[in-house]
């Protein structure tokens, strides 16, 4: 039914009887996020809206210096070696992709002449190839023209395992061919409904063939331009000191009119988030600071009469408590949390549901995240067209207690529930981090009231998130009953985000715990829905499948979502940064300007 309605709506948008915004609103009403709605329109034959970013300056330059403060400074400037977002952000000042994501999850053309769609012949009907047209007349900073060869080379460079590029995940599975000097075709092995991955966003930055051709493969580290980027971006490279500062100056030949606004750009690194917030909001020494992992109270205090304010961007980053479906306390074949075991307490779905009732998300939001969080029942929180409207959450200790009573867990003489002589005790682990440990305390308090004994544990982040096979405290090993952390959503498509939890991905000793399904969740319906979604070219059906996956995770209480987290940045009052929750902070740096 949804399907038919959607089809007629797409028809209306195409004919101009319904405007795009109304369409997206209707889609949102049925639980589809904006970026998906836009991709639906694109596949349905309607061109994607050009991004609506308002850009006021009427001439190039004249904006003075732009001073950015990253409390972890970039350590390298080759986008394909960029391990963390800080490195991607630094590289992005100089290098550019074909398109970036705007605030609503729309594609915003950068080096592309237009966004591919079915109507303009860019998208193949079988979703196995995309043709991108490259904007004519774009020049590298050294004056050489940008052509399709550079894109083909970038693909060869990044997909070569000897290069040791971190973007190999984006480029390894595709083929890129030159169609003409100014167009390329990307070929996928299987139908790929989400085609906007290669050459889009942070890992999409194109490298100049004429400077990197000799440094493909094992010599990649020796390229002099790894430290002195020559790109097509709005700023030309001036200076780089790893971990300290990146400096650039206006590119007079930039390919977009009236851009960039600033004459010079500086990205300073080091220090901590609180003092970075202070340097922007309180003293005004800097114009913009990134990733304000600072408690909302502190930010509010700084903002009183300050020179800057905090700004927010909504993406799909989710902070959650994951539930272990296997037994972390029993060792089988040298492995705890083995698939051969079942969790003695949490394998009962009603117990998991009761546990979800004990997480007071509203208090967590009030006490910890403030403006930087939204409460949610969903694991998948964006883009809008993928967000389920079928779920709900509540905080209710009485109801939880009753469910636990019904499940056979009776309160013992010491106030702790027990069943068949077994105490209801949980080990709750997370990475060492103020907000997370405070959340632990809030959850523990509610659990105590319901007769659950919770032991808290926090692991240093560098251990918790490492892939160290020998260490028992990593999150994929999950040697605890429940664990909390955040998984960021780095692109406005749920494919990778949701694929983690198929049965084939379970983390085990056999795959050295590299399987991404750390809760060890197994559900045939879920596997089938993901498999169907991955080849489904009809965007509406595809969105419905992902919503179904989210709902399965909710019904089975695989996760207790704690907070849908927003990106928090600090900006000077007059600065107008173009931010998106679906992209890195500097992904639309060409559109930044300062209000006079």
């Amino acid at each position: 039914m949804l399907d038919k309605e959607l089809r007629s709506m797409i028809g209306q948008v195409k004919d101009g009887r319904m405007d795009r915004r109304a369409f997206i609103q209707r889609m949102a009403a049925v639980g589809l996020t904006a970026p998906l709605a836009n991709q639906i329109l694109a596949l349905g034959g309607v061109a994607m809206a050009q991004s609506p970013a308002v850009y006021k300056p009427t001439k190039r330059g004249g904006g003075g210096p732009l001073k950015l403060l990253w409390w972890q400074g970039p350590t390298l400037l080759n986008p394909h070696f960029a391990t963390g977002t800080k490195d991607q952000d630094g590289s992005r000042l100089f290098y550019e992709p074909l398109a970036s994501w705007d605030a609503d999850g729309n594609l915003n053309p950068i080096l592309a002449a237009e966004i591919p769609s079915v109507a303009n012949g860019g998208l193949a009907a079988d979703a196995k190839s995309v043709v991108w047209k490259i904007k004519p007349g774009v020049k590298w900073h050294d004056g050489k023209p940008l052509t399709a060869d550079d894109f083909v080379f970038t693909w060869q460079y990044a997909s070569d395992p000897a290069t040791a590029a971190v973007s190999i995940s984006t480029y390894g599975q595709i083929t890129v061919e030159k169609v003409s000097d100014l167009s390329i075709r990307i070929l996928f092995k299987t139908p790929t409904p989400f085609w906007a991955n290669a050459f889009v966003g942070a890992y999409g930055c194109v490298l100049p063939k004429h400077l990197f051709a000799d440094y493909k493969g094992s010599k990649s580290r020796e390229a002099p331009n790894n430290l002195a980027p020559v790109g097509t971006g709005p700023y030309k490279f001036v200076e780089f000191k790893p971990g300290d500062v990146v400096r650039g100056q206006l590119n007079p030949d930039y390919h977009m009119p009236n851009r960039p606004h600033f004459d010079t750009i500086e990205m300073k690194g080091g220090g901590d988030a609180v003092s970075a917030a202070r340097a922007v909001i309180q003293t005004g020494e800097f114009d913009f600071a990134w990733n304000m992992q600072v408690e909302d109270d502190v930010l509010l205090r700084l903002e009183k009469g300050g020179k800057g304010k905090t700004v927010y961007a909504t993406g799909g980053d989710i902070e959650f408590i994951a539930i272990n479906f296997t037994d972390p306390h029993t060792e089988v074949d040298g492995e705890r949390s083995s698939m051969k075991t079942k969790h003695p307490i949490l394998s009962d779905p009603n117990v998991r549901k009761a546990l979800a009732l004990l997480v007071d998300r509203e208090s967590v939001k009030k006490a910890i995240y403030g403006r930087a969080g939204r409460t949610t029942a969903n694991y998948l929180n964006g883009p809008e067209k993928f967000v389920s409207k079928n779920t709900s959450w509540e905080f209710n200790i009485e109801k939880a207690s009753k469910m636990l009573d019904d499940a056979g867990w009776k309160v013992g003489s010491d106030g702790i529930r027990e069943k068949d002589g077994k105490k209801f005790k949980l080990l709750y682990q997370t990475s060492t981090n103020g907000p997370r440990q405070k959340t632990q305390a809030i959850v523990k308090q509610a659990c105590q009231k319901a007769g659950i004994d919770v032991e808290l544990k926090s692991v240093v982040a560098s251990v918790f998130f490492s892939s160290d096979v020998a260490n028992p405290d990593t999150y994929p090993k999950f040697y605890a009953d429940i664990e909390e952390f955040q998984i960021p959503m780095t692109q406005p498509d749920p494919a990778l985000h949701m694929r983690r939890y198929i049965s084939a991905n379970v983390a085990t000793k056999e795959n050295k715990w590299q399987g991404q399904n750390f809760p060890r969740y197994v559900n045939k319906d879920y596997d089938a829905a993901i498999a169907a979604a991955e080849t489904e070219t009809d965007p509406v059906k595809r969105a419905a499948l992902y919503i179904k996956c989210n709902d399965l995770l909710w019904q089975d209480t695989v996760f207790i979502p704690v907070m849908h987290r927003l990106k928090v940045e600090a900006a000077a009052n007059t600065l107008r940064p173009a931010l998106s929750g679906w992209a890195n902070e500097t992904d639309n740096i060409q559109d930044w300007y300062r209000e006079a």
Partner: protein
Amino acid sequence: MSQYVLRRLLIAIPSLLAISLVLFVVLALAPGDPFSELATNPNVPPEVQAALRAKFGLDDPIYLRYLHWLNAMLHGDWGFSFVSRMDVDTLILQRLPATLYVIGSAQILALLIAIPVGVYAATKPYSLFDQIANTLAFVGFSLPTFFTGILFILIFSVTLDWLPFVYTTDIKATGIHWVLEMIRQAIMPVAVLGLFQAASMTRFVRSAMLDVIRLDYVTTARAKGLGQATVIVKHVMRNAMIPVVTLIALQMPAVFGGAIVTEQIFRIPGIGSLLITSILSNDTPVVMAVTFVFACLVVLFNLIADVLYGWLDPRISLR
């Protein structure tokens, strides 16, 4: 004398080797790897991280990795940083000037305060001046630099708006303006570090002076009719300086090693902040190089201190 120096240098070789071995093993056993940031990025499958580990040799056995490192080090190759994929020596040289400038100035400030105050306090023990100096010294070394640093920022940057609290390596000015700006931005970190070190050093100088000032030869010197200044400077100070020289010599490597906390607070791109970020990101080659250079400096300055003893007190012979 030269024989003594040569012998000491030769003894230093096995101890440096042992130091490097311990450092390497401890770092190799420490959990985490430089690519752990990739683990939470759903776009990057775990195989990519595993492939990178293999490519950079992180999966080899520890003894092999150590031998590789030692061999390269002997050939003057310091390796490259896993995080910035840049040669370690360039990375360190880039950071050295800021550290030398800030930490060096702080040490000089500490000496300029500690020696006169300590000496004067010792000549008049339990006088009002001595009491005040002692109280301030206790306050000084009880307050950690991360506290005074933030306090200074709040007072001089936020409230009064006199000084910047973000250190910039290249100031866009020339001539006298450049010099003034360099001084202006270093005032807070130098004061924080310098005062902290001056505090403990003052106590040290004072007690060393007090030990000597009561000795008979000092009374003899006074009985000869020498003036107070000559007695203190020529007779007392020279002998009292031996423990002080040891202390200063042991602090000299810190001038090169940087001050982790202070550099972090004021965002000074020095060796200390390089070390801490490298440790946090498990960038073994950089941590190894910085700590090893530090070890070499400690050994070297110990030797220099020993040689200086002979000059300060000719009764000490070096054999």
